[in-house]
């Protein structure tokens, strides 16, 4: 059942069209990765969903209601935004006490979430002395205060060390396993690939793909072949003439959607001397870059 619904969402900042007709849903009990390169419109979309920016058109709702229409919203939705910020002179415990009072959550919940995120020992230290990773954990503690059924996390692994990233993955999986809907954005596919069930890929404010990780990025485009030849341009023209997508690499050509047998056959027809031929399964990252048009 969809607990988050984005429908034909548009957001324009002056002359910049940040989000262009985006639509997708997030299901309960699943981790949905919201992926795209920097500047793709991920944060704007999440902020529109959370009522922090006003959509130019379209809707972003939780069970049909906008965030600001929810009764005690932090009891329904927990959010960790990219620029999680705290008053530097306030302790972590006091920061959470303030949020607990605002959201009308039990005061005892503060100690519980401090323990969940593993910073209970540092709870009475001022936040200005916190590392980036500790701040991120505090932000997650704040999101969990109301024991919400929906978690929204914008680039939550930023600033985390490898053990922190691993902890974050476990946390996301655990939250989804307990029936919560988790929407997590990232521009680094590798950091979320192990923990997501579904992905929504956007680029330049537009939807580029959605579905399970396999459906969207899992090699539906078929195999890929790396080939090294004496006359790469001649072979590339021949391959492109037969409808294959060819990328020029430092070592030769990368032919997408073709097997080594197919590429070898075409090379033989064209009488091009082959120096090397090998299959290459497209990595998730390569598929992601191809989908988002991020030409790195």
């Amino acid at each position, binding site marked *: 059942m969809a607990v988050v619904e984005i429908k034909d969402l548009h957001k324009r*900042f002056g002359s910049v069209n940040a989000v262009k007709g985006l639509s997708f849903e997030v299901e309960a009990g699943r981790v949905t990765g919201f992926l795209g390169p920097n500047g793709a419109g991920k*944060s*704007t979309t999440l*902020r529109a969903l*959370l*009522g*922090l*920016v*006003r959509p130019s058109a379209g809707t972003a709702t939780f069970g049909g209601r906008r*965030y*600001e229409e929810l009764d005690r*919203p*932090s009891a329904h939705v927990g*959010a960790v*935004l990219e*620029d*999680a*910020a*705290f*008053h*530097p*002179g*306030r*302790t972590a415990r*006091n920061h959470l*006490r*303030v*949020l607990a*009072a*605002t*959201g*009308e959550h039990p005061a005892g919940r503060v100690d519980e979430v401090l323990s969940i995120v593993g910073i209970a020992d540092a709870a009475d230290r001022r936040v200005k002395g916190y590392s980036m990773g500790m701040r991120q954990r505090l932000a997650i503690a*704040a999101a969990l205060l109301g024991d919400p059924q929906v978690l929204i996390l914008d680039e939550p692994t930023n600033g985390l060390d490898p053990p922190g990233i691993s902890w974050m993955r476990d946390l996301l999986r655990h939250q989804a396993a307990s029936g919560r809907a988790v929407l997590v954005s990232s521009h680094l596919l590798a950091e979320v690939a192990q923990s997501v069930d579904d992905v929504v890929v956007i680029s330049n404010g537009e939807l580029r793909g959605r579905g399970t990780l396999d459906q969207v990025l899992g090699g539906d485009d078929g195999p890929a072949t790396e080939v090294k030849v004496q006359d790469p341009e001649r072979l590339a023209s021949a391959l492109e003439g037969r409808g294959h997508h060819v990328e020029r690499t430092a070592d030769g050509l990368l032919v997408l959607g073709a097997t080594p047998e197919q590429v070898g056959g075409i090379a033989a027809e064209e009488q091009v001397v082959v120096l090397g031929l090998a299959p290459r399964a497209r990595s998730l990252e390569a598929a992601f870059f191809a989908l988002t048009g991020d030409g790195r």
Partner: protein
Amino acid sequence: MSALLRAELLKLRTTRTFVTLVAAALVLSLLVVVLTTLLTDDLSEDDLRSLFTADFSSLFILLLGVMGMAGEWRHRTITSTVLAAPNRLALLATKTLSYAVAGAVLSLVVTVAIMAVGTLIQSAGGETTIGIADLADVLWRNLAVAALLGAFGVCIGGLVRNQVAAMIGLLVFAFALEPAIMGVAPDVGRFGPTSGAPNGVLAVESFGGEDFLAPGIALLVMAAWVGVAFAAAAALLQRRDLV
């Protein structure tokens, strides 16, 4: 609303800035009263009234109000604040009210302290003191001014997001611009939000021979300033995208 108010008052109490400024207001106000009562002979009842009126709580709560709201932008905590309380109008109203309450409490502490110390020193020296009724009269005026200036400070902080610019601008306005206007055009200056109208509420007798507004009118003028600043800050906050 009550949960929001509790949270805002908790916010106030959980930073060192608040404690420091409250202590500074208390110490400075006591210092002025102690030195004046010890070093000046033959203080009249009017002198004592003026002395007890001149506490520092109004100035400090004005600055605290600015810091409390503009600080949300400076520390980028406005996002988590709005996430927890997405009704922005209620949020601003509560913050405004909380600083009004804080201003009244701060002024109560400072005014009672300076009245007690000043009266003790005067009594010990066999000098003039003022009665309970006059003390109570000074007290409510101080409380009202501090409450309204605390609220005004929040609204200014909502209008000028840069905390430093807001504070410096307000200090320049309060200590240079408004007195200058009072000197050049007293009919305009006595309606000023940080000096003219507050002095009317405090029943300060005159400024360069020009009278301030009557206390009741001055109170309404201060409330009107808060209302206008609140409306402008609320309009800005309502339509602002938090990116």
